C-alpha cells in the first residue's frame, strides 16, 4: 500500500471566504451606510426628545417682527406671518410628528400583534374569524378611512392618532399571524406542548419572542409612511387646533405666503421630508442589519 500523500485538510473557509470576500466590499459598505442611517435615527430621536429644550423662543408667541427671512439674526429659520420663531416651532413640530408616528406604530403593533398571535396560535374558527376581519380592514383604503374617522370624532391630535391606529393594525396582524403559523410547527414548540405547557404559556413564552424580529423590521420600514400620512392629515386641518406647532398644519397655514415668503410654508414641509427620509434610510438599515426579508 503506497503511502498516501499527506492529506491536506481543506482550510475551512479558504474557498468560501474568497467568494464572499468579493462581495464583502459591498457588504461592509452597506453596513457602514446602515450604521450611519441608524446614527441619524438616534440623532432625530434625540432632537425629538430634547429639541424643545433648546428652542430659543416660545413656539406660540410673537417674538419678533413678521416675515423675517431665513438666517436673520436670532431667527435662524425666519419668522412667520405673525412674528413667531419658525425654528422653535419646527423643533416642537418634530417632537409631535416623531412621537405621534411612534405611538401609532406601537399601538398598531400591539393591537395587530395580539390579534395575530391569538389567530395564529389558536387556529380553527378563531383564526378564520379574526383573519376575515383583518382582511376586510386591509381591503379598505386606510388613509381615506382615517380622514372619515377623524372627521367623525372631531379634529384634534388625539383623535387623529386614534383614527390612524384604527386603520394601521391589520398589516401587523397579518405579519404576526403568518410568523406564528410558521413557528407553531417547529420542534421546540411541539416539545413545549408535549412537556405540558399550557396554551397561554406557549403563546407568550415561545411564540411571541419568535415574532419580534419580523415585526421590528416591518415596523421600522413603516415609520416613514406613517410620518407622511400623519403630516397629510395635519395639513388637511385634522390635527391639533390652530396655534399648535404641527408641521403639516404649519405648511397649510403658510400656503398663502408661498410666492412672497416661501420659507414660511417650505421650512416645516422640509422638516417632514427630512424626518421621513431618515426613517426610510433607518428602516432599510434595520432590515439589512437584522438580515430578514
Amino acid at each position, binding site marked *: 500500500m503506497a503511502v498516501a500523500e499527506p492529506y491536506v485538510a481543506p482550510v475551512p473557509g479558504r474557498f468560501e471566504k474568497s467568494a464572499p470576500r468579493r462581495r464583502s466590499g459591498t457588504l461592509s459598505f452597506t453596513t457602514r451606510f446602515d450604521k450611519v442611517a441608524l446614527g441619524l435615527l438616534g440623532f432625530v430621536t434625540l432632537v425629538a426628545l430634547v429639541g424643545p429644550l433648546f428652542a430659543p423662543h416660545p413656539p406660540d408667541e410673537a417674538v419678533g417682527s413678521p416675515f423675517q427671512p431665513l438666517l436673520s439674526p436670532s431667527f435662524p429659520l425666519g419668522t412667520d406671518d405673525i412674528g413667531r420663531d419658525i425654528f422653535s416651532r419646527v423643533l416642537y413640530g418634530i417632537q409631535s410628528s416623531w412621537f405621534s408616528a411612534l405611538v401609532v406604530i406601537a399601538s398598531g403593533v400591539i393591537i395587530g400583534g395580539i390579534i395575530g398571535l391569538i389567530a395564529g396560535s389558536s387556529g380553527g374558527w378563531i383564526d378564520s374569524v379574526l383573519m376575515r376581519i383583518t382582511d376586510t380592514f386591509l381591503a379598505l*383604503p386606510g388613509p381615506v378611512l382615517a380622514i372619515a374617522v377623524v372627521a367623525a370624532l372631531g379634529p384634534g391630535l388625539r383623535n387623529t392618532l386614534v383614527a390612524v391606529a384604527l386603520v394601521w393594525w391589520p398589516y401587523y396582524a397579518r405579519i404576526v399571524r403568518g410568523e406564528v403559523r410558521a413557528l407553531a410547527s417547529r420542534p421546540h414548540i411541539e416539545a413545549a406542548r408535549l412537556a405540558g405547557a399550557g396554551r397561554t404559556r406557549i403563546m407568550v413564552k415561545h411564540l411571541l419572542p419568535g415574532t419580534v424580529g419580523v415585526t421590528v423590521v416591518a415596523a421600522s420600514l413603516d415609520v416613514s409612511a406613517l410620518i407622511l400620512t400623519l403630516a397629510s392629515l395635519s395639513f388637511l386641518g385634522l390635527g391639533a387646533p390652530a396655534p399648535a406647532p404641527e408641521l403639516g398644519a404649519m405648511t397649510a397655514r403658510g400656503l398663502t405666503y408661498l410666492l412672497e415668503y416661501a420659507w414660511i410654508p417650505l421650512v416645516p414641509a422640509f422638516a417632514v421630508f427630512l424626518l421621513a427620509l431618515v426613517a426610510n434610510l433607518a428602516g432599510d438599515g434595520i432590515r439589512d442589519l437584522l438580515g430578514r426579508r
Partner: protein
Amino acid sequence: MARFIAGRIVAMIGVILVLVLLLLVLQRYTPADPVRAKLGANARAELVAAERERLGYNDPLPVQYFNYVKGLATGDMQDSLRTRRPVAQDLGAYLPATAELALFALGLAIVIGGALGIASAARWRGSGVLRVVLVGGSSAPVFLLVLLGLLFFYRRLGWLPATGRTGIRDAPEGPTDFLVLDGLLALRFDVVGDAFKHLLLPGLCLAIGPAVAIGRTLRGSIIDTMGTDFVRTARSLGAPERTVMRRHALRNGIGPALSMTGLQVGLMFAGVVVVESIVAWPGIGLYTVQSIPRLDFPAIAGVTLVLGVLYVVVNTIVDIAQTVADPRLRG
C-alpha cells in the same frame, strides 16, 4: 374560474357592506348632530325630536343599517350639512375633475414606475441616479412636492399655471366631463392644451410616490425572474437581452407590480385630497377639505364611500385579472 370570480365578487360586496356599517357607526357617534345642523341651534325640542324620529335616528342599529344601505342602493347619500344639497348630487358635480386628475396621475405612475423598474433591473446607465432622486421624492410629503413645483414651474419659469382646471372661460362642458377629452371632442385644441398644462403639476406630484413603489416592486420581481431556469435557457438559446427582458422577465414579473399598483390607488386617493386643496382643483378632495371644518359628516361619508368602493373594486379587478392571466395563481 367562474367560481373564483364569483367568490371574489362576493368578498368585495362583503367588504363594501362593512365599510357602510363603519360609516353608520361613525355617524352615530359624531358630535356634530345633523338634525341640529339642519334646524338650527335654537330649534324647539319637540321639532328636533320629531325630525330625529322622521330620519329614523331612534331606530335600532340593524334597522338603520338596512335603511342606510337601501338608500345608498337608490343613490341617496343624505344631504350635505354645508351645501344643503344631496351629497350624491355634489359628488356628481365634483367627481369628474378628481377622476381626470387621478387617472392621469395613475397613468403617469405606471409609466414612470415601469420605466424605473425596468431601467434599474437592467442596470441601464444613469438609472442609479434616477433611483436616488425618486426614492428621495417618495420620502417627500406630497404637499412639499406641489409647493416646490409651484415655485419652480409657476413662479420661476412661468410654464405652468398655479390653480384650477383651466383658465378658459368658455370651455366646453361636454359629454365626458374630462376637460382634455371634451376639448378634443369639441375640437378646441386651446382647451386641450390649457387643461393638460393644469393637469401636469398636480398629476406629476401625485404620481411620484406610487411610481417609486411600483418601480421597486417591479425591479424586485424582474430580478427574481432573471435568475430562473427558463431565462437561462432563453439566454443560452441566444435570445438577445431585450427579448429576454420583454418576453420572459417582464411578462412573468409583472404580477406583483400590478398588485402594488392596485394598493397604491388608496394612497393616491389620500394624496388627491391634499393636492386638490393646494391647487384649488374643483374635485372631491377640495369638497372634503371644505367639509372638514364644518363637521359635515354626510359629505365626508359620501366621499369615503365613493373612494372606498372604487379602491375595493380596483383591487378586485386586479386580483381577477392576475388570476386569469397567470395559471400558476389558480389554486
